[in-house]
């Protein structure tokens, strides 16, 4: 609102400056474009181009923050804390890369899967919804404004409900699954907003860096504490933290295969990132209540999740449902890593987030391929398909091994670091020794449920009437890219580990890591 005389000199922005907003903007613009063009033939290519562009942008962002520091972007030229700020540091760059990579790899697979499972007239809107979901997830991660997280959370959630309900063509239970998810998700998001309201009451700001600063200044008081409780419960619903996970198995089981692949690898991960950001960066991890929440609530719940969900997974008769329960268990590992409150623990959590993302995406892709060829994912329907679809099943085997955590696969690395992190703290507290043992024991449960699937796939006789053949190439390539990644990250660990450690360090620096003065970006 300046007069002519005091107009500040403006340095023109370059393409590189715009990267954080382009990350969100590209898929966001693609969604209405798909609807506007309304062409069934153009929908998929547009979505794929947008995803690939987002992937390139996330790699460029990751490159910029590889040495620490952050990239900041002010929307509308309004400087933070007043305006909305996008801020990318090592932690979000990592999650952005995961989400956009999964989105890009899954889309070619989705083309065939969606064509098979969903009526042709819904395809255009389906891809538009997919793009909105992608936008929401990327936005949740990229933004540095607490309320903006809620807005993007709702963009992704609302489109997720629609995507899950698309499974109704095959099984009408997809509708109730979507409805349940809608009720639970909305309660979760609303809790999150209540928490933000309390933070705003206490601090008068919504910018994450500013929030961290002001909470550190005023210390813990009752408003800040109850805000924390609301935020954790609200996000816990989205994360599928153990007692709040009830929506997940049903939604994952009845959603179209491609949607399940996408959601299992990205949606919970973005929510976990938000939990990390709030517990470590915005709230000072040294506050006793933050500490206590993590140790007294997160850790036991995580361990219960690891065992109970794995146990339930053992007794499933549907491959897809089994994997959904396994997801709840794996979220337990990630939360356990967070609750250890050490750099190694957090590194393990971030690595497991990534490794579980690619592993679960691979396995769900395998399920989708079986569904395409045999019409369902029940064990009796996929019996013996290992021999009829060897290439698909080969990838599934790699995914299964990575899920168990067999050495040489990505899943091993993160579980190994998690055990190490628990052992690191064992000298001062014998409880942590028990936790380390629990991690190993629950992995044994994973052996059981993964073995059951392998047994069904390879050792049982195929149905003599079955006409199942190998999955089409467009499905095999994404699956083998994921399988390759599972093995690659199982052997070549340095870069990924270093980056995760950097992200963990940035998060653990607490409010220091968010201070406006540090870092290379900031207001121009």
């Amino acid at each position: 609102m300046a007069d002519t005389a005091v107009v500040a000199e403006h340095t023109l922005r370059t393409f590189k400056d715009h990267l954080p907003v382009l990350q969100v903007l590209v898929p966001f613009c693609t969604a209405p474009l798909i609807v506007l063009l309304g062409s069934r033939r153009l929908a998929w290519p547009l979505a794929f181009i947008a995803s690939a562009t987002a992937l390139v942008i996330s790699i460029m962002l990751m490159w910029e923050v590889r040495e620490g520091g952050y990239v900041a972007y002010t929307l509308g030229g309004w400087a933070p804390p007043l305006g909305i700020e996008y801020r990318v540091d090592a932690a979000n760059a990592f999650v952005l890369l995961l989400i956009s990579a999964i989105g890009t790899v899954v889309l070619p697979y989705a083309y065939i899967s969606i064509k098979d499972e969903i009526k042709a007239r819904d395809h255009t809107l389906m891809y538009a919804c997919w793009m909105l979901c992608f936008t929401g997830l990327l936005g949740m991660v990229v933004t540095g404004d607490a309320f903006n997280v809620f807005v993007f959370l709702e963009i992704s959630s609302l489109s997720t409900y629609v995507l899950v309900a698309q499974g109704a063509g095959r099984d009408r239970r997809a509708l109730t699954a979507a409805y349940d998810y809608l009720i639970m998700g909305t309660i979760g998001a609303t809790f999150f907003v209540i928490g933000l309201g309390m933070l705003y009451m206490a601090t008068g700001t919504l910018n994450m860096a500013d929030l961290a600063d002001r909470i550190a200044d005023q210390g813990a008081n009752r408003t800040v504490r109850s805000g924390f409780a609301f935020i954790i419960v609200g996000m816990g619903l989205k994360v599928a933290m153990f007692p709040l996970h009830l929506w997940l198995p049903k939604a994952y089981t009845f959603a179209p295969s491609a949607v399940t692949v996408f959601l299992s690898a990205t949606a919970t991960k973005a929510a976990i990132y938000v939990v990390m950001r709030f517990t470590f960066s915005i709230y000072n991890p040294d506050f006793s209540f933050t500490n206590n929440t993590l140790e007294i609530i997160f850790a036991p719940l995580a361990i219960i999740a690891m065992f109970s969900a794995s146990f339930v997974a053992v007794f499933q008769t549907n491959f897809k449902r089994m994997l959904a329960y396994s997801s709840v268990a794996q979220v337990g590992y990630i939360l356990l890593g967070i609750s250890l409150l050490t750099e190694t623990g957090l590194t393990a959590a971030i690595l497991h987030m990534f490794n579980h993302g690619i592993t679960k995406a691979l396995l769900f892709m395998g399920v989708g391929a079986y569904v395409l060829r045999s019409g369902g994912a029940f064990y009796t329907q996929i019996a013996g398909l290992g021999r009829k679809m060897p290439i698909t099943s080969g990838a599934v085997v790699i995914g299964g091994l990575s899920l168990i955590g067999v050495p040489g696969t990505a899943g091993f690395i993160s579980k190994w670091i998690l055990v190490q992190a628990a052992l690191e703290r064992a000298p001062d507290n014998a409880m942590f020794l028990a936790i380390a043992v629990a991690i190993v024991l629950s992995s044994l449960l994973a052996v059981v449920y993964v073995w059951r699937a392998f047994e069904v796939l390879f050792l049982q006789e195929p149905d003599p009437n079955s006409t199942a053949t190998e999955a089409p190439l467009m499905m095999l390539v994404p699956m083998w890219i994921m399988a390759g990644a599972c093995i690659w990250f199982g052997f070549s660990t340095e870069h990924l580990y270093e980056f995760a450690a950097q992200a963990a360090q940035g998060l653990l620096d607490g409010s220091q890591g968010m201070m406006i003065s540090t870092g290379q970006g900031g207001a121009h």
Partner: protein
Amino acid sequence: MIFHHLILRVVTKILVGTIILFALYVQFHGDFSPGGGFQAGVIMAVAFIIYGIVFGLTAVKKVFPEWVVHKTLAFGVLIYAGTGIATMFLGYDFLDYDAFSPAHPTVGQHWGLLVIEFGVGVTVTGVMVAIYYAFAGRPPSISDEDW
């Protein structure tokens, strides 16, 4: 059927124009008085919905076909995003309306807001009408005569 609800039909015909006019007023006067895209969009949609309720879905779909509604709501979002992209091409941040008139930022802000509020209004109109069509377009499980 044609001669039923004569008063309603006449009043609606008179009202629809006024409602649309009022929507445009709220839309474009939004920067001087309370108003803006959201409110204007809803008011604009009300005009179509009232017309649909009184004259039937087929009549309103002749005026505002369903495919046009879908294009409209997508187009509004693109107006909004397009404004932001335009500012980016002018070398400013996304949605930094100063870009439209660097020497007089207030004027730039004014024009920028006008355009994006128009985008919002178009989208909200489209969304509201689309929701109405989606619900009203379902075949009722109990026919009107059985009530």
